[in-house]
């Protein structure tokens, strides 16, 4: 192994999180060790999840970011149907169209219809029927199509 090879090897390591490498070849033996790469600083290190966990988490996060969260534009009471007897506006798992009414927020005896801003699938309702909601409170998750 020539110096040039060594150089390349070292260069190679730079981009990785490898901390030790040993090579034996044709009577040449090379061992390179280094400090923990990435520097997840000592203090923070014990808390940080494994790389794999991080990746899974990241995927979920990416997935979540694709979804659209419908939040309440006002304080009020959340209703999924126009009246107690009527069927609910949209069942979970079904398609919704942009402009379609998703729910009602009642405030001061006024029924405020909340419409979907996108075409998509209503994945999840985050609030129970009849519950009070704050300004900005997440109501639904929609997967846009």
């Amino acid at each position, binding site marked *: 192994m020539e110096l040039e090879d060594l150089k390349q090897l070292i260069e190679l390591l730079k981009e990785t999180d490898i901390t030790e490498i040993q090579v034996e070849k044709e009577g040449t033996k090379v061992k390179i060790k280094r400090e923990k790469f990435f520097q997840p600083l000592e203090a923070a290190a014990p808390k940080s999840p494994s790389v794999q966990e991080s990746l899974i988490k990241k995927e979920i996060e990416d997935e979540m970011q694709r979804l659209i969260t419908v939040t309440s534009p*006002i304080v009020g*009471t959340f209703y999924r149907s126009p009246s107690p007897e009527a069927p609910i506006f949209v069942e979970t798992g079904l398609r919704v169209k942009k402009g379609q009414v998703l729910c009602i927020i009642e*405030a*001061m005896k006024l029924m405020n219809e909340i419409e979907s801003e996108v075409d998509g699938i209503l994945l999840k309702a985050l609030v129970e029927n009849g519950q*009070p909601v704050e*300004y*900005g409170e997440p109501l639904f998750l929609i997967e846009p199509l």
Partner: protein
Amino acid sequence: MKLFKKILVANRGEIAVRIIRACKELDIKTVAVYSDVDKESMHTKLADESVCIGPANSAQSYNNIPGILTAAEITDSEAIHPGYGFLSENPQFAEACLSSGIIFIGPSADSIRLGGDKAKARQTMKRRGVPVVPGSDGPVVTEEAALKIAKKIGFPVIIKASAGGGGRGMRIAKEEPEFEKQYYMAQREALTAFGNGELYIEKYITEMRHIEVQILGDSKGNIIHLGERDCSIQRRHQKLIEESPSFIATQKFRKKIGDYAVKAARALKYRNAGTVEFIVEPAGNIYFMEMNTRLQVEHPVTEYVSGVDIVKEQIKIAAGLPLEWKQIQIKLSGHAIECRINAEDPERFIPCPGKITFLALPGGPGVRVDTAAYNGCVIPSHYDSLIAKLIVHGRDRAEAIARMKRALDEFIIEGIKTTIPFHKKALNSPAFIKGDFTTGFIEKMNAPVQNTGKESA
């Protein structure tokens, strides 16, 4: 004592904290409402429940009537305390509370309206024998009629918007030639600011003290006052230092101004806590200025000298309880001073919002701090710049001043600029120490040449 089970506090900052404290001591649950930038605010943390009612813009949050009433409904609040500012002097809000079956902790919508119409209030007071600054008898209708009155009372005059108050919507005409211009300017301003161009005219008084009287009225029609506050230390009509008693108040003076204040409150059929503001000339003439139909920022000064917890009394009055005191039972003792600590540059008074990186509050005997600030909190740029009220009480004015000075020295706020340096300067100024000042105090204090001239004279 049957009061309320739960009160919603329709405000933020130190006054929301003040109201929550009173409720806690009365064993009443509290609901805080907040805008999304106030999620980490102290009032949100201290209340039993909290509801986000809108974005930072106060029109959509702290001034959002349907949002606040809905928050009250979904939390089963029985009453709403509006604090000061925001919806506290909004008669529509008081009415909306009433029609929603929620008790508004304050006066009736009618009293608020009467107090808010400055020209009409002047007329009412005059009729009831409360002296007003010489001027028009109610609103003026045309520029010609206004000029006639101005000439009668003599220049300079001040042209004010009927819907104004607190220093907004005012124009001064020093002499006749500029009257016309100022009249129309005032009218335009009034229209822009209040959507109402109605004006009235008063003699412009340059040398004056601003002295106000704290009023408590119950639902049975009993009205008492808790003595006066001297709020003459102002900058552009914004109060910075308040004290009680006023340096110039004798027993006789207090009786006189107190009687006027009670008369004024009675004219408005006033219920709950309110403040009657007066102009007092150096010669001793007292003129009604306006009535503030709400809790005042500087109420702790009166609490210290009277021993009355004004916020608790507001709540008791709203619950229908009669006043516990007759006028004669109100005893004032010692002297109290309040300094308003604003997040402002202390030289130019420009707001300075931001993060408080270190905070140390003063303590020890005779010191009270009312604040919503804490270590590491952020003062948002959307609301007013008051971050703390430092109030002290002493046996006499000299002790109160000494105490305030040492408390200001202990008060450390890092990360943002505050008015603490201004207060240190003001409290060391000879005019303040001698009690010899008018509303022109700050301009004089900041004019070193003039000061030196005076001292050598």
